[in-house]
């Protein structure tokens, strides 16, 4: 995580301790550095503070705390020594005050906010003069005092423009500890111990400015332990369909004492897995996973990109006009996006830029690859697009389906729709996977849909071959392929077997993975030893799989276990040869979401299906022909 040195923390100009004096009203008792805040009472006080020697215990404590932490060198090392002297010799504060002759402001101007009426006590109060901001936490303690209450405030003075949000907890805590001391031992109100406040203020001033942390023992039981934490804005909410991408080497940072969810989640952040898939892979609760990702985002060690699918669409952003000339873009791009194979020539930047410029909304990555022969160039398309997204000149174009109201009824279509849905209702959903695709699944699914896993050349070769074949496909095949494109059909949890040499073994692995997935839905627990480590399955389960436990529960009609790839496949092969493709019916919850405000990544994640399945649903809902020419009938899809 970034060190706090990266962030700018405002410098404390002055720290002062003020009380309500029985005779004089509000007055500053001690201030560090001396003499910066004027006022009739203040001048007297500074005298007072100089003459009163701080209690020895505090001085000793300060010395101790100075020695213990090994701190990086900073400009205040000098003042460090000076401060030690100051707590021992009396005249030192004087010296400093004389050297800085400036006066920040007059105490009388702000005294009513420093020692305010009771209503403001116990609240954080920030007031401002022309050039400075004063933050304090006025405290009013009822008790056995002369006026039945004791009122004090420890205030910090900053430049007017300073952002004080990181100091708010500091001010509260100082008040809390001092209040406790006062309640326990009249630390503040007792004339014997109150001079120690001066040393405390000094240490606050020096340590917080120099090291952003401090440890001030006050008595046997109380101490002020402070650390200023750097301030980062909260990240936007994490969505299930976002893909976290590490900006640093996360695995090197994982420590044993990390939160367990976090360390589990971190292992699956590879720029390919999306949040809900990480939750599954890491076997973590989806909400906890979101929080973990959000935490990493907060520290800016990851960023999020979109799920890579060959059905995705991208478009250039206007930034490209500047970024295309930047060295960090044009020099890094080629090596990053090319698959590393011996003898492969890295395409030059004009070529790459040309390819980027031909990514358009309305054109899927697959179509783009085919048109421009991207394949031959040895470009890893996932890295190619994510490079553009990361650098900020490429933008994912989402599909936003919208269901038009029925003003032009087309009975034909409607009937067909109802027929198809009833038909699929009749058949057990578990076996109603898009059948026509099944034989094709084996070859395409993993390869054409999902991001090639980096560093596994076999997989990439797979992709290559599959792509070549599809590029030759004609119209009918095109449509079928399209259905199989991203993710599997109805149930993404089931990954279909890839066409890979290690088929049987993989199958076994996969089954156990499926079991491990389903285990969260039953009380049955798979022995962990049987669960392959995610990295080992990564190749076979490259089908993006989007599950969330909630929505899974919403579909009890699709039993998990029966969907184990081997079973569904065999069943499909047995039973489906003759019958045409059928669809599981579109879930009724889908309809209200087709208002043009939910994009397909969101819908796919929500319903745990891939785009081909969703596409079929949309065709069914809209009553379109869906022949791969984008006829969705009443459903219009806006790309934006």
């Amino acid at each position, binding site marked *: 995580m970034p060190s706090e040195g990266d962030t700018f923390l405002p410098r404390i100009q002055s720290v002062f301790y003020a009380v309500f004096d029985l005779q004089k009203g509000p007055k500053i008792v001690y201030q560090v550095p001396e003499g910066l805040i004027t006022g009739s009472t203040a001048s007297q006080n500074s005298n007072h503070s100089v003459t009163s020697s701080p209690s020895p215990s505090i001085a000793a404590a300060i010395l101790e705390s100075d020695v213990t932490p090994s701190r990086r060198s900073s400009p205040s090392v000098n003042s460090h020594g000076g401060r030690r002297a100051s707590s021992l010799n009396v005249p030192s504060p004087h010296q400093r005050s004389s050297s800085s002759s400036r006066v920040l402001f007059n105490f009388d101007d702000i005294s009513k906010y420093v020692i305010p009426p009771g209503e403001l006590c116990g609240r954080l109060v920030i007031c401002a003069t022309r050039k400075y901001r004063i933050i304090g936490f006025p405290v009013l303690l009822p008790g056995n005092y002369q006026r039945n209450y004791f009122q004090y405030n420890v205030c910090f003075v900053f430049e007017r423009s300073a952002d004080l949000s990181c100091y708010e907890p500091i001010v509260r805590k100082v008040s809390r500890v001092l209040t406790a001391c006062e309640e326990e031992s009249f630390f503040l109100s007792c004339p014997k111990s109150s001079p120690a406040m001066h040393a405390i203020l000094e240490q606050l001033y020096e340590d917080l400015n120099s090291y952003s942390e401090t440890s001030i023992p006050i008595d046997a039981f109380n101490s002020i332990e402070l650390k200023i934490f750097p*301030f980062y804005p909260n990240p936007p909410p994490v969505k299930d369909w976002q893909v976290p991408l590490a900006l640093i080497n996360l695995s090197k940072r994982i420590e044993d004492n990390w939160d367990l*969810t976090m360390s589990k989640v971190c292992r699956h952040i590879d720029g390919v897995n999306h949040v809900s898939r990480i939750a599954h892979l890491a076997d973590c609760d989806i909400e906890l996973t979101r929080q973990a990702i959000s935490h990493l985002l907060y520290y800016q060690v990851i960023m999020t990109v979109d799920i890579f699918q060959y059905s995705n669409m991208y478009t250039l952003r206007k930034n490209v006009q500047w970024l295309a000339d930047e060295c960090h873009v044009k020099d890094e791009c080629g090596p990053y996006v090319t698959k590393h194979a011996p003898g492969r020539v890295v395409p030059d930047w004009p070529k790459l830029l040309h390819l980027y410029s031909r990514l358009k909304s309305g054109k899927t990555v697959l179509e783009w690859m085919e048109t421009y022969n991207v394949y031959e160039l040895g470009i890893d398309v996932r890295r190619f697009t994510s490079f553009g997204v990361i650098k900020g000149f490429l933008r994912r174009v989402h599909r936003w389906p919208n269901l038009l109201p029925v003003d032009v009824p087309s009975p034909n279509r409607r009937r067909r729709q109802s027929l198809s849905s009833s038909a699929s209702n009749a058949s057990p959903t578990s076996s109603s996977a898009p059948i026509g695709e099944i034989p094709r699944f084996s070859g395409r699914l993993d390869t054409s849909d999902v991001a090639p896993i980096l560093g596994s050349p076999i997989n990439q070769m797979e992709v290559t071959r599959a792509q070549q074949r599809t590029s030759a496909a004609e119209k009918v095949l095109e449509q079928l392929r399209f259905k199989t494109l991203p993710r599997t059909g109805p149930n993404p949890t089931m990954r279909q077997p890839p066409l890979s040499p290690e088929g049987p073994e993989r199958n076994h692995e996969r089954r156990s993975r499926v079991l491990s997935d389903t285990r969260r839905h039953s009380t049955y627990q798979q022995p962990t030893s049987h669960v392959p480590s995610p990295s080992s399955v990564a190749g076979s389960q490259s089908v993006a799989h989007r599950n969330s436990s909630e929505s899974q529960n919403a579909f009890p009609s699709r039993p998990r276990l029966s969907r184990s790839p081997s079973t569904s496949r065999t069943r499909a092969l047995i039973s489906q040869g003759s019958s045409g493709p059928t669809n599981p019916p579109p879930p009724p919850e889908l309809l209200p979401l087709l208002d043009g405000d939910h994009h397909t990544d969101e819908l796919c994640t929500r319903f745990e299906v891939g785009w081909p399945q969703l596409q079929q649903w949309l065709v069914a809902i809209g009553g379109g022909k869906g022949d791969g020419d984008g006829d969705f009938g009443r459903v219009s899809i806006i790309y934006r």
Partner: protein
Amino acid sequence: MAETLLAILLVTSSAKGPNVVYRWPPSVENSNPRLSRPRPPVDVLELDNPWRASHYSDNANDLAETHMEVAVDDIDDYAWRRPTESRDRSMSFSRSAIPPSGRDSPCNEERREIDPVANEYQCLFDYTAQFLAGMLCPQRHLCHQKFELVIDNLVFAGHPVCAEPDGMWRFKPERYKPGSRGRGSRHRESNLPDKESSEVSLSGDTHSTAMPKSSWLHMFHLVLVFDLPDPSSSASGNVARYFDTIYEQIAFTVTAVLFQEQVLSNFVELECDAIGSLETEYMVKGERFSDFASHAQRVSSIATAMKNLYDAIKSSNMAHITLNDLPLELQLPPYLDHLLHSEEEFELEFVGRLENHTDSQLWGRELSFGWRLPALVPWKSLLLLDTDQELDPYVNLRGSHVHAEERCLAEGLIKFLETASVTLSLADMASLLDWDLHSQVYPTVRWLVHHRRAKIVDTVHNGLKTVFSIAPKFDKPLATLTAEFKRDFPQPSILPLPTLMATISNSNSKQADNHFFATVVQSKDLISLYHEVVLWMLKRDLLITLHLHVRVVTTAELKFHVRQAHERKMERRASHHLRERRRSSRRGDHGVGDAHEHPRVTMPWLSLSPKAARRYPRRSMDSGQSKPSDISGSILLEDAEDVFDEISEEDSGEENVGWGSSEDTLEPSMISDPGTASPLERKWLAAMSEGKDEYIARRFALINQYFDGKRTDDEILYTAEISRKQLREVLHHYEEYLQTFLHPA
């Protein structure tokens, strides 16, 4: 809009003490208390996450519930609680310390405790109004400057002003300039001479005006109360910038006018009297505070102004208020609230470049921050927005109150408004109206944009042959937009909005015929109708115009060709010189002969003339990075040859061409800025024109400076003064060397 604004208060101070004279809205919803430390979410709190993770089951919810009961207690202790919730009544003794302001609060403490109606008058943000008034009337020293007080999560901001110590209201020249807009404050602080001049003019004013005497008013303070935004929702420093902007645009400006009117006519005091007596009347009658608040609108223009201001800020409109018959238009930058939220991805488009772009200076300071305006350039167009009838500029301009001498000006403006069209660029407008672009057109445009009556858009083709894409985000849900669209365009020939958008967005995938006419309109008869559709969508920011950008690519073949030509020339020349030199034998034998026999090996270092030697290190510095070793040999060689060549022939035109520098490779590359092309790049550019028609070559030479990928087609056409057809011709002929991009500008 300032979503955080909670209320506007008018606080006064007199000898009788401070008092909240008026506030709007009458009842303020209390903001939720916020914690300064993170608090585990109660609903998902799990004390033993590892255990839970390892024993995950479907009935986790039951578990969570059992945990909850324990958790609530813990949290009770953990959470920081507001003092008001726990404070007992006896703690508020210090209230008596505040001098009771008799004037407007006749009811005493006891009555307030029991009487809910009186309570309404007296309670404000969990405090008594009196107490707050005391806090909001600062010491005299803190008057006439920006005031800021933060109490927990309430921010009070304003600009308190007070009478002189002798009780007179007078302009304080060093701080005040009547009627100045918010920007004046900064201006004056930095500008001493200005300060003096304003002092002079003001003191003149003060003496000439007969000053009405005020009787009781010491200080007044128009306070804006905000809910402190969660600082963690935005980048550091943004919250301060946010409040600064509101202070400058609203608080300072209104206070300036009020102060002026108070000085000139004791306006504020009279208004406060009116409101005060009304309040007393209502309180005595026991009527509700809200009734008083609405009645006060009728008796006081300050009260009305405060209400209008609040409503306008909340609805992010322009506030049109009237103070003592002085009309005032106030507004906040439309994108101000975005400061408070972390940037979303699509918003990054606006971050960065425009900020220091020279074009943004054309907008002026008022319009530069939080407006997110496109550049004000001659090739853009003006889109007039629908405005309220009463504020219609036509009505104002045609109104009878326009003076005769202004009549001509008004007519010019009317003509301007009538001419303005999205199909007409600002430059064309200027020439049509015979106005000067910078001194007449731009100021008018600025005014219209600032008053939200127009916006700058990309010029739309007359025949709608413009390429659009759909904005990534809509302000309203699509369903709402669809309904509005249906209402405005009921014609059956027009597709429903979603279909229309789907068609537009799908069209981008095509390489040709992707413009609006080809994809949507398709019939010339419908152009005028669809013109309205385009306007409708542009007004709602639904459409983004895509622009053509061009870049020049030097291909490997071209580079090879150029290098070959150069080498041939060098060889010719070298042999020629050698012959000459041998004849004259001016130089020593060494190297020269070798250079001829082994032109790839010899490096005639020693033969550098002083001039060439001077140039040599300079060039190697230019070239920057060192090249891989395998090429460096040839680079040096070529350079040496080059130098050798120049020794005898200075004016060959080959000087300073970066032969052999790092840019002289055979790899295809881009000429990032052809306008400032290096000599070598110029050679490549020239080589591109080989074999082309002369007129095309000349045009290419003329306009290739705009092919830097940053200029839009519109800009190129405007700057180069060529037609679209001519540009297309060049693009066609130089297809091989040009890359085109279609993206938003």
